[in-house]
């Protein structure tokens, strides 16, 4: 049978249709704003002003975006292998230990940059470990990775609560969190970077892990499109029979991909723990693992799409906080709706507008639609 969808020009496939999906998601979000009696236009204006209107706003926007770049990359890498890692939340949470333990142990001893290196390794390692069991069970025993990673999110939550109300809590303290790290284990702020662009900053949590996130985006791009491993991951994701034909060890690729994905999710912990709060506290991931799903879908699983998508969500988080001041009916939870709508329209319903677009194109430029049908015969 011919492929269910005739081919369209690349810019339509990768540009126009995703934009339409995204636009619809935001229109529906706008309707919700209308429903609660506020003006969507005013909300959007406030949002943008809150996120980009001041140096501090930009700092916060990029701080949130840092989390989402890490988790978005994690989800995207797994997508390339045909896997759905819904466990970024748990992987990041558990990986918080990999950041906190070196900081707590070494903060009086080593300079911040050495602790940073250990913490990068620690968070990546623990994130990878938390993804290992679901990966192994998928590769070797065929257990559905979506279900096992969900279960591991909850298991991580229990483990972390246990540790934070127990052994990690300093004696005499009531709050379920570790002690605050000494100055020596704080990541440098990036206020200077913003000031370079002429912004005036009071204080923002933007820190060095933002640059690490950008760096990891390049690393992930290179991994996927410039290494043998990435080649094997993509082969596996597109066509398991072709992977078998090419002699690719499928179980190995599943496990490695998931562990790298877990490591990326895990590195997200650096940003809030070492960069901002300077201690490990309850529920510090705050849904960033799930935002990663929306970011990866919106960014079409490409780092060049993930970074702007992450910044957009960072903007929603920061701007959303600003809106909440001005518009009593809108809180930050508006973002959760937008996140859901983006996942719905850019993910589950990504092909909804395709037939319409196709019909329109067929009527304008019949040839462009014709092209793809050759070569797909049975």
């Amino acid at each position: 049978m011919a492929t269910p969808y005739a081919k369209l020009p690349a810019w339509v496939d990768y540009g126009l249709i995703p934009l339409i999906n995204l636009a619809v998601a935001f229109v529906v979000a706008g309707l919700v704003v209308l429903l609660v009696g506020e003006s969507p236009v005013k909300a959007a204006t406030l949002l943008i002003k809150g996120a980009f209107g001041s140096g501090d706003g930009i700092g916060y926007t990029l701080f949130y975006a840092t989390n989402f770049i890490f988790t978005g990359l994690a989800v995207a890498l797994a997508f390339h292998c045909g896997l759905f890692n819904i466990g970024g939340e748990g992987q990041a949470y558990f990986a918080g230990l990999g950041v906190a333990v070196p900081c707590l142990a070494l903060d009086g001893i080593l300079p911040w940059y050495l602790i940073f290196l250990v913490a990068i390794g620690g968070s990546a390692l623990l994130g990878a470990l938390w993804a290992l069991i679901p990966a192994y069970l998928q590769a070797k025993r065929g257990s559905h990775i979506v279900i096992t990673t969900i279960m591991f999110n909850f298991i991580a939550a229990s483990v972390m609560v246990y540790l934070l109300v127990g052994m990690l809590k300093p004696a005499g303290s009531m709050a379920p969190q570790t002690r605050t790290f000494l100055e020596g284990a704080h990541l440098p702020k990036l206020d200077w970077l913003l000031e370079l662009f002429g912004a005036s900053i009071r204080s923002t949590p933007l820190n060095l892990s933002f640059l690490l996130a950008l760096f990891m985006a390049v690393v992930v791009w290179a991994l996927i499109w410039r290494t043998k491993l990435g080649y094997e991951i993509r082969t596996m994701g597109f066509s398991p029979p072709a992977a078998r034909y090419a002699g690719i060890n499928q179980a190995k690729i599943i496990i490695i991909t998931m562990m790298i994905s877990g490591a990326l999710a895990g590195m997200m912990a650096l940003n809030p723990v070492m960069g901002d709060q300077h201690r490990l506290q309850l529920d510090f991931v705050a849904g960033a693992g799930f935002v990663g799903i929306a970011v990866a879908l919106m960014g079409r699983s490409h780092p060049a799409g993930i970074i702007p998508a992450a910044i957009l969500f960072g903007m929603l988080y920061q701007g959303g906080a600003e809106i909440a001041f001005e518009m009593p009916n809108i809180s930050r939870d508006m973002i959760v709706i937008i996140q859901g709508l983006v996942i719905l329209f850019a993910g589950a319903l990504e092909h909804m507008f395709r037939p319409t677009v196709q019909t329109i194109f067929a009527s304008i430029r019949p040839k462009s639609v014709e092209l793809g049908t050759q070569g797909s015969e049975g």
Partner: protein
Amino acid sequence: MRETGGQSAIRLTGINKSFGAVQANRDIDLNVERGTIHGIIGENGAGKSTLMSILYGFYQADSGEIAIGGEPIVIDTPNQAIAAGIGMVHQHFMLVNNFTVLENIILGAEGAALLSGGIANARAELERLEKEYGLDVDPDALIEELPVGLQQRVEILKALYRGADILILDEPTGVLTPAEADHLFRILKQLKEQGKTVVLITHKLREIMAVTDNVSVMRQGTIVATRKTAETTVEELAELMVGRRVLLRVDKQAASPGDVKLKVEGLTVKDSRGVTMVDDVSLEVRAGEIVGIAGVAGNGQSQLVEAVSGIRNAEKGTVLLGGQPIRVTGGADPAKLRRRGMAHVPEDRHHMGLVLSFEENENSILGYHHDDAYNTGLFQNIDAIRDDARAKMEKYDIRPVDCRLKTANFSGGNQQKIVLAREMEQDPSVLIVAQPTRGVDVGAIEFIHRRIIEMRDAGKAVLLVSVELDEIRSLSDRILVMFAGKVVGERGPDATEGELGLLMAGVEKEVA
């Protein structure tokens, strides 16, 4: 078409059906007489199953008319087909495996919102059908616990329970043992005696001769002939099926075979359902010769190739590559075989040979992506990969000459050349080529054939598997014929089409 005295059960007029650019059925006219067994024979992909799916309302024809019992009728859904008295036994059984026989039989014909009444009715009706047709089966058995022969019987019972007068069976013996097949034919004859009309779709000549009254031959989407079975011969049908195409003569010298490069001994392979598809096959291929494996599709060629090339584990047997044994029964590894000089052009380029979503240059290294030439240190050497791809595109005349184009956007012939270029340019010692020209345009066919001969002349051992008899005859130095998982004969390149056709039909013993 000849009119005979019998009443028409099915009459199809001018049926056309396309899937995208592929025309699966072209101007089909067919008349099936009431109370007969009518065979429809043709190779895989000839359009038989599509035609019957149209009759059953599973697909809608693009144009054409259907008449059942002389009455014109529109069949847009299986429901309408069932109401018109048509029942179908699909090639892949439409049964729910964890249901009982009874549950399967009443599915869609439950009678009422509660099951109890329907179950009781079905039980009684089943008993009647059992007596009438000798269709014995335990109504409370789970489908997954029944052998395939009995599962098929459930399919027939399903159709009869719905009051089918016309029963269509699509390749019904593909999964049956010969004894089970014989039993099925007895059942079909019984059905005929009770006044039912049976349409039997198959690619096996033996079955046509054994059980049908009339036979229509399909080739490339059209019906090329309809005969009374008693008035035709196996030879004639074989010729009609394969067709007298313009023989694409390939200039070649006589082969000068060297050492044995590939030796297969006692290879037995089962498919995923556990059916033995390759049964104790032995063969050898020498350097500088092309050994062709002829056979009607589905006789074990695919599994043979997959086992030899390391994609599928075999049950038992040995394979020697350049005199050295390779692992075939467990832990088979295609990557290792490639490194040892075995190249493989798979029969299914869409799912196996290519990743259609990849750029052309990415596919030009599939399976060879570990080669040093394509990597520098940690990274792939993208420039080298693309230069290499461009060189191959030029050498194999792959168009459009754009190695960054998505592979799905190349035509079938060019896609096949991408695979061939990749496998041939690695300088293998053994080349396995399966269905090299399936879905390929005429111009490319000639090119591909010439390249295969050149490989032979360069001293490669070539194992060619094809269902195209012409291709086998014009390329091979030796021809092996596979039937029902076994190599049933070996012939020289001068073997006649009729001779090979008989071997392919598995009738050697009866006729020769």
